[in-house]
């Protein structure tokens, strides 16, 4: 029983320290988090504009039920008509997640573009080839497309292909919902 007051005293000290630390960090976080978020949005808009030529983009992630692997859904508008549905998908490649952006045109069900956004855990010079590789799927039909696996980087390429498959599956299942928007 002699031990008890000591344990309580020590735990109290640690808890107080924890609260002070937590409070300080919460405060700084409230300042830095918006700055970080804003920059991420700007970077994202830049990327989306580069690969999916639309005038305006909206983040629709919270408005739809997402399958496993889909991180975000964006809508790309041209002249206020919903033209492109863009998926940000992520599958595990060789060393870590590979994030891919897949754009599908709502009017003709054709793939607008596929762009690997990040593959930072892939082996440099081998799996990392997927990052700048042109998989040439633009203009292909979502039901019948050809996807080239980079030789020597099969695992990374398959991850990209999986990303594409996930995106197409969700698109096909939710197409009617998207059409209601435009």
């Amino acid at each position, binding site marked *: 029983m002699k031990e008890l007051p000591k344990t309580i005293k020590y735990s109290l000290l640690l808890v107080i320290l*924890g609260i002070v*630390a*937590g409070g300080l*960090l*919460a405060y700084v*976080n409230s300042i830095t988090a918006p700055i970080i978020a804003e920059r991420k949005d700007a970077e994202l808009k830049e990327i989306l504009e580069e690969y999916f030529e639309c005038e305006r983009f909206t983040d629709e992630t919270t408005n739809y039920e997402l399958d496993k692997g889909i991180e975000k859904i964006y809508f790309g508008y041209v002249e206020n008509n919903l033209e492109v549905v863009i998926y940000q998908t*992520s599958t*595990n490649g*060789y*060393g*870590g*997640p590979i994030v891919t952006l897949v754009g599908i045109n709502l009017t003709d069900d054709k793939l607008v573009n596929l762009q690997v956004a990040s593959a930072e*855990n892939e*082996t440099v010079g*081998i799996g990392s080839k997927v990052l700048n590789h042109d998989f040439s799927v633009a203009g292909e039909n979502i039901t019948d497309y050809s996807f080239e696996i980079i030789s*020597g980087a*099969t*695992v990374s390429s398959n991850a990209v292909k999986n990303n594409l498959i996930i995106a197409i599956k969700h698109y096909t299942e939710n197409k009617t919902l998207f059409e209601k928007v435009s």
Partner: protein
Amino acid sequence: MKEILTLAFSAILIQNVLLSRFLGTCPFMGVSNKRSSAVGMGLAVVFVITLSSVISWALYNYVLVVFEMTYMKTIIFILVIAALVQIIEMFVKKVSPPLYRSLGIYLPLITTNCAVLGMATIVGSEEYTLLTAFVFSFASAVGFLLVMYIFATLRERIDNGNVPKAFRGVPIALISAGIMAMIFAKFTGVI
């Protein structure tokens, strides 16, 4: 299943936590001069890394994300690790005093092992599932153990050889580690 195996294989050999990611270098230099202590340390580390990474993953995804306090992750993870090492120390002391004596100071030092906090930080994120978190952390730790053992075997030989006085100990160990790293780097072409 194939995905899991690939993940494990790459964690052990290709992106080896020591020779490729540079995590855990301090004990690598400090403990690896005898095979028995290297293995003992390695096994303890496997246990701590796997357990702490999984716990960190759970805390991150079910507590920190839910309460929107993800910025607390570094503090929480390191406290989990410190607590885990404390518990293991007490456990080993009770169950096997000779083992406790032979591991000596290396046990508490696991707390400051970059590999442990490093793995927890990598795995404690939304990009891993419970299964991949477990496999990845366990495999990476096994990679650590593997390199520690091979290296200890090497060092036992090197220390008996003709090394210039200035290079004895850490310098020659680092150079040997560099050569090992070159060999491990060649594993990338295997898959």
